[in-house]
């Protein structure tokens, strides 16, 4: 296991890159602790696969150094980096038994028979494969095969890290949570550094202690699930995390308030002082927009355009002057399109962004 440092890493597929658009991966500097669980989260084209390939050694970064426990591995090949990988689709040998599949990476490296048996039994127990060890790997269900694939990634004790690339793609949605649970258990029991790449927020936030959110080749924020939800550092993070994402409304500062169109959102002086002149973006999550009048705050007036009942709650989509706002409300509240509502934006949950970045 190793502590991983991505020191000023950037990558361009063209020679002599100059401007940001020349880079598939914008410069980043990240450190991942030994034994941590990390996720790279972003839509397609965000650069997460490029970053994964740099870690595994399939891509040599055009800029920066990659360090495993302070040893520079930038120029080392995949094999000598000691990285294990689990892919989207199961990679197993159908002609072998489950035991032989799990033992394969150890036997390849000359691990003795008794040590191999001990480790395979341990990994099989965690993955609920003990009963299948003597069976042929062919003919098993997709989720069992993918558990074997995971087991092959986990079985070596000498790896620097294990990389998971969208490993639950082929799993029946109803079974996914059980494999997510397995992955978390594995992390606790085996104390390995796990790096998990996905476009699915539930997968990333459930699995990882810290999540790296990426978009268009740039790392926008690394944080705990709670930090990403409560304090997005970038409008993209606010939008991408949460269903639906954060409300992002253009606003201008005016004295003691942010103006959304003609409506005032009062803010404390220190937040006004820290803000920028000109166009800003006010962010607030739909779950924090309140329909309850606290009595001492100015309310905003919105008109309801659409109501989406979702069972456990409802989403109210409304117009606030020239902009739109979504409100997550209890299902019992009777509202219909055309109704005017007074809403309150609690100051503690208001974020202000300039050029996409969090300011105050």
């Amino acid at each position, binding site marked *: 296991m190793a502590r991983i440092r991505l020191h000023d890493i950037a990558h361009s597929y063209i020679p002599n890159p100059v401007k940001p658009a020349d880079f598939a991966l914008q410069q980043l500097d990240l450190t991942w602790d030994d034994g941590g669980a990390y996720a790279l989260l972003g839509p397609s084209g965000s650069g997460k696969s490029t970053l994964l390939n740099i870690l595994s050694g399939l891509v040599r970064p055009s800029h920066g150094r990659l360090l495993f426990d302070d040893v520079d591995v930038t120029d080392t090949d995949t094999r000598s980096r000691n990285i294990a990988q689990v892919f989207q689709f199961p990679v197993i040998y159908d002609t072998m038994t489950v035991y032989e599949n799990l033992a394969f990476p150890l036997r390849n490296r000359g691990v003795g028979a008794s040590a191999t048996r001990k480790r395979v039994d341990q990994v099989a127990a965690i993955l609920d494969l003990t009963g299948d060890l003597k069976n042929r790997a062919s003919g098993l269900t997709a989720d069992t095969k993918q558990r074997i694939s995971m087991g092959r990634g986990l079985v070596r004790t000498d790896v620097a890290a294990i990389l998971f690339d969208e490993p639950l793609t082929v799993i029946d949605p109803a079974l996914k949570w059980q494999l997510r649970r397995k992955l978390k258990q594995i992390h606790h029991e085996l104390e390995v550094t796990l790096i998990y790449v996905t476009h699915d927020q*539930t997968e990333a936030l459930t699995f990882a202690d810290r999540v790296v959110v990426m978009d268009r080749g740039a790392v926008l924020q690394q944080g705990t*699930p709670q930090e990403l939800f409560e304090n997005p550092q970038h409008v993209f993070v606010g939008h991408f*995390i949460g*269903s*639906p994402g954060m409300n992002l409304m253009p606003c201008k500062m005016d004295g003691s308030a942010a103006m959304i169109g003609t409506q005032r959102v009062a803010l404390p002086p220190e937040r006004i002082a820290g803000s920028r002149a000109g166009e800003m973006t006010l962010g607030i999550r739909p779950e924090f927009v309140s*329909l309850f009048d606290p009595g001492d705050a100015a309310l905003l007036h919105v008109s309801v355009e659409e109501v989406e009942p979702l069972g456990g709650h409802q989403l109210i989509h409304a117009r606030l002057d020239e902009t739109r706002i979504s409100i997550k409300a209890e299902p019992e*509240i*009777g509202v219909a399109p055309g109704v005017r509502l007074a809403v309150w934006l609690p100051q503690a949950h208001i974020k202000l962004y300039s050029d996409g970045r969090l300011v105050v």
Partner: protein
Amino acid sequence: MSLVLENISRVAGTEQILHGLNLTVESGTLLTLLGPIRAGKTSLMRLMAGLDTPSTGRILQDSADVTRVDVRKRSVSMVYQQFINYPNFTVYKNIASPLVVAGQHDKKQRDKLVRDMAERLGLTPYLQRLPAELSGGQQQRCALARAMLKDSRLLLLDEPLVNLDYKLREDLRAEMKALFRGGDRIVVYATTEPQEALMLGGRVCVMREGRVLQEGLALDVYRAPLDLETARLISDPPMNFFPGMIEASLLRLDGGAELPRPAEFSDLPAGRYTFGLHSAHLTLRPGSGLCALPVLIDLAEINGSETLLHGQYGALPVLLQAEGVHNAAIGSSAMFHFDPDRLYAFGASGSLARAPRFHVLQPGEARHGTHSAT
């Protein structure tokens, strides 16, 4: 147009896929076919389209028997899971194609229709591109635009969002709802996701293994599912089920909890029931009048804005949906609280004995103190 399916069955090879379905869909209806894989949703749509013929039964359009009328002679358009467009046509030509086929030769009028539809679906910047140059979400928008411009009386959509990632799905779902509104065509939409059926807000037909379990307004079915299986299928996250007893003045859950008999259950005979509870009606916060269940945590699944806590109450799986991000270690203990007035009661046969009463509140009105002004 009205669409009537009478006693429809379909056998393919040795397998019976649909079992004696009856369904009436009125003009202007949005109907969601909701069910897990192999429920028969696609098979039913293919019969509605005229791509297949049923083994027994009749299909009537406006009282005319169309059971054996070929798809080419029916007024129908279809959108599939895969993004299907003409690969060598630009987005513009793809969207215009049904108008050209229908003989809409007034170029100015055609251009306006194409551009209006492209604008509604956010495709204006991509009109001159080929489908292969678009993202998956844009390709599906293009297919949807084409289907919308075809002047068909029946629009069939077979899990159109399933191959998109969650952010694109969110955006396109909301757009589709606006797109389907108004007009007198029938829209039939197949999905495995209860949230889609509820959000689209029309009628829902809950299916399982080739049978219709319940049909009605989506919210009505959600609030009063006629049996356990329907309750399970229309709830996401799935409904919690607690087997137990109604005794004189109390409910006893098999896990050991005893609680006062809810007023709604006052006239139910004593005996065995299965009690249902939506995951959103369990909370981590204790409160007056709430019952508590000791739970061992299996996993905290975080979807960004909500946390789904998987746990075990005795030997029973139990799910709690909480706002915000909650961390709970695997194997830790927690108390889950709920209001007994939120319980459903299902009888021994699985059919609904009583649904909780649904109170409509005014905006700004609190439900007995459970809201928080964060």
